[in-house]
């Protein structure tokens, strides 16, 4: 967060684009685990995330941010990957709670992945079990700053490093019957 | 040899009795002689019809006694037309029945004798000018018809024949009674003479005599409550016989009723009576036809219905209506003839003659089915087939007299006809085939020829009705010309 890019080096069009992106985050909340319960207070009148241009999106096609709220079982990971791949570039992931970082209390479970960023690129981790709405909003603000800096481009990164991600994903998901997307 | 109307009666009657003799020489003569006779009669018809259209009614005295005492034959444009029609139908039916499998060999002799007698009787009825003679001819028709009905000698045939006989006997009795009453009141049996003198009879007696005659001949003419014999007879008789009944015998009965009303008696209300009876007949018959499962019975009821419409036409009584009535009779003869002839191949091997057994026969018997369908199209009155014109004439005649209800009823009946005829057509063509190809009887070549003649005639008249309308006009004039008839018979011969 300390690294501030020289804004003058950015092209003005890019600057406007990123400013718009930053101020308009459509969130696809992937409500797994316990974290989903933290979203309603974040969005409603007490914390009102809409102040920051954050609003819910109904489908991955319209979404910018994939909000993963908690642990992921192998089964749900598969869906997350699919949803993520259905989103349109540029796209961001905010991972939510300890479980997404290192497995949290489910570190030795037979069916829960431990580190989300091995499977999909995560832009912002929000620590905590569970993080409060304030933390969530802080996470969003962090993401906005990252966007404004121009280094929130994990969609592209995912695309470039798809082999590595695929390898990891397929290690967990044994029966790989995901449809192929022509990238 | 001078051709005269006598040939109509003499030749077939003679032939009928000669056939058994020739049969001893060669069995084939049994089949050939009627053909020769009918061909000859057709020739006679053509000659006489030409003669009639040029010179007018031909009246012929038999046995030298002049009318009103002797027996005479009247070949007017009207009676001549019917006689020619009967001859023609006879010829067609002969062609058809030649080597018809079901009446072949042993019974063939019987069949042709009876058939010739039927024709003789029917033509006699039409041509004769003497009412007792007419009764005699009616008996000839009756006897041959009873026998032909029970031709197959099975149980149902015998029953049908018996019904026919029973009602026929009623008819004979009533007619004879009528003749006796008539003779006792005015002392003449010659029809022209009766026509001349009928005003001398007291009205009440005249009406009673008329009623006796109407009921008697109404049985032959399939008038409503008197036609119980018809469905059975049509369905049990051999195929050609059905055609002969509807084309020949029934026409004779109808002829007499027309004669009675138009020429013989001058009774008020008889025309209306004919209309009402015709309507009742036709409505009940068509409704019954709709509910039949037996093809032949359906055709029989349809035949009754057609005769009802003919009655209606003659009941209207204008020239146009008579033309329509005659046209209807002509159409009924050829179309119903075609339907009967073709249907007997359609239900050849089915003793119950069920409509449901026709499923898909259109594939197995394409030509016969096609001709049947043609007949059905024509009889429900679809243009461009002949049935349309006759119905149109009738409707125009009715409209002329502002009988709107009549038009409506006739057209409603036409819709009913559509329902039951098209049901059969659907069965024939648009259902899955049920019948095996071995089970059907392919028509013989002569049957095809005879049916095709009728079929071509239907189309030809349909496309160009002027083929027949001039004859019909003459016939209608002749029928309406009562004075001319009397004059022809009584005055011309006397001179």
């Amino acid at each position, binding site marked *: 967060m300390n690294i501030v890019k020289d804004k003058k080096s950015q092209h003005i069009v890019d600057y406007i684009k990123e400013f718009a992106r930053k101020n308009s985050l459509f969130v696809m909340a992937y409500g797994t685990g316990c974290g989903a319960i933290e979203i309603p207070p974040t969005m409603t009148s007490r914390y009102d995330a809409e102040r920051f241009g954050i609003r819910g999106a109904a489908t991955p096609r319209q979404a910018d941010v994939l909000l993963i709220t908690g642990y992921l*079982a*192998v*089964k749900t990971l*598969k869906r997350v990957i699919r949803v993520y791949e259905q989103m349109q570039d540029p796209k961001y992931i905010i991972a939510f709670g300890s479980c997404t*970082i*290192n*497995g949290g209390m489910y*570190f*030795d*479970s*037979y*069916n*829960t*992945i*431990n*580190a989300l960023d*091995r499977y999909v690129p995560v832009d912002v981790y929000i620590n905590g079990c569970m993080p409060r709405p304030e933390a969530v909003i802080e996470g969003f603000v962090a993401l906005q700053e990252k966007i404004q800096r121009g280094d929130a481009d994990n969609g592209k990164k995912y695309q470039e490093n798809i082999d590595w991600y695929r390898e*990891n994903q397929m*290690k*967990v*998901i*044994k*029966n790989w019957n995901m449809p192929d997307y022509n990238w | 040899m001078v051709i005269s109307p006598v040939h109509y009666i003499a030749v077939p009657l003679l032939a009928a009795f000669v056939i058994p003799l020739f049969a001893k020489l060669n069995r084939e003569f049994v089949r050939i002689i009627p053909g020769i006779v009918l061909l000859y009669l057709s020739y006679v018809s053509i000659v006489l019809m030409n003669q009639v259209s040029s010179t007018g009614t031909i009246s012929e005295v038999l046995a030298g006694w002049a009318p009103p005492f002797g027996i005479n034959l009247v070949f007017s444009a009207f009676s001549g037309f019917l006689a020619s029609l009967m001859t023609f139908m006879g010829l067609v039916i002969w062609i058809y029945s030649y080597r018809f499998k079901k009446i072949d060999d042993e019974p063939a002799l019987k069949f042709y004798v009876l058939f010739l007698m039927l024709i003789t009787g029917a033509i006699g009825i039409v041509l004769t000018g003497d009412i007792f003679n007419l009764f005699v001819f009616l008996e000839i028709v009756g006897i041959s018809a009873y026998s032909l009905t029970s031709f197959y000698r099975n149980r149902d045939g015998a029953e049908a024949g018996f019904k026919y006989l029973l009602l026929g006997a009623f008819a004979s009795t009533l007619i004879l009674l009528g003749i006796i009453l008539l003779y006792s009141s005015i002392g003449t049996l010659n029809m022209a003479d009766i026509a001349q003198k009928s005003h001398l009879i007291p009205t009440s007696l005249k009406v009673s005599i008329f009623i006796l005659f109407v009921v008697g001949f109404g049985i032959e003419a399939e008038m409503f409550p008197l036609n119980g014999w018809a469905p059975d007879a049509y369905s049990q008789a051999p195929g050609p016989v059905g055609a002969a009944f509807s084309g020949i015998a029934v026409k004779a009965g109808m002829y007499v009723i027309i004669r009675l009303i138009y020429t013989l008696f001058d009774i008020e209300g008889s025309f209306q009576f004919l209309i009402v009876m015709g309507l009742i007949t036709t409505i009940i018959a068509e409704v019954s036809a709709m509910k039949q499962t037996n093809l032949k019975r359906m055709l029989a009821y349809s035949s009754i219905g057609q005769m009802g419409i003919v009655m209606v036409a003659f009941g209207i009584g204008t020239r146009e209506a008579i033309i329509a009535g005659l046209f209807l009779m002509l159409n009924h003869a050829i179309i119903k003839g075609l339907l009967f002839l073709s249907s007997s191949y359609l239900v050849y091997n089915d003793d119950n003659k069920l409509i449901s057994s026709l499923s898909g026969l259109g594939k197995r018997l394409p030509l016969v089915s096609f001709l049947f369908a043609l007949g059905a199209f024509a009889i429900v009155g679809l243009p461009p087939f002949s049935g349309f014109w006759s119905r149109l004439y009738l409707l125009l005649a009715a409209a002329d007299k502002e009988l709107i209800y009549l038009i409506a009823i006739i057209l409603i009946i036409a819709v009913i006809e559509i329902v039951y005829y098209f049901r059969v057509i659907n069965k024939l063509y648009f259902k899955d085939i049920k019948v095996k190809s071995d089970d059907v009887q392919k028509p013989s070549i002569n049957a095809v020829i005879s049916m095709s003649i009728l079929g071509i005639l239907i189309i030809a008249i349909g496309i160009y009705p002027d083929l027949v309308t001039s004859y019909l006009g003459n016939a209608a004039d002749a029928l309406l010309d009562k004075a001319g008839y009397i004059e022809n018979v009584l005055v011309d011969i006397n001179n």
Partner: protein
Amino acid sequence: MSNDLVLENEILNLIKSAFNAEGNVIKSRRVEVFVKKDQVSSVLLFAKEQRGYIHLSHSTCIDWIEEGEFELIYSILSPKDKIMLYVKTRIDRDNPVMENLDGIWHQLNTYEREMREMYGIEFPGLIGDKEFCLEDWDEIPPMRRDFDTVEFARKTFYQRPGREDAKDVRKTLTEQSGEKIPDFATKYSRE
């Protein structure tokens, strides 16, 4: 047995006498009966139809690996008597087949599917997808005690550096205190 347990004893004795089963009153409003595998349906039906135990509270399975048996528990509740009745039965661990009872309570279907997936118990005629919670599972059923969860997790899932101490809690405990791992099997066994 105090007088407070009249209803408990009544149902216990009824089942005992009717089905020739063992059982005891655990405490107030808790009764357990041990029945044979083929008697389970009769006992459940009896309790449901005759004694008003109309509510299926829960059903689960315990892996008695030492005895080579699975114990299936059907917890049913009578709202009238306010007694929870545990109907317990044991089936062979090597041939884990149990009668499908979801005809009695439809909600048993869910529990049976879970047991099928987690313990590998077969319920002939059970309707429902083979996959219940897991997808593409090709190991031994994960809830069986011979399945080494920690090992599996370590093998399969990437462990983020910094959690190297992640170990089996029991092993950690033993290492620190020197105690023996408590033998729960023996402790809570019926015998």
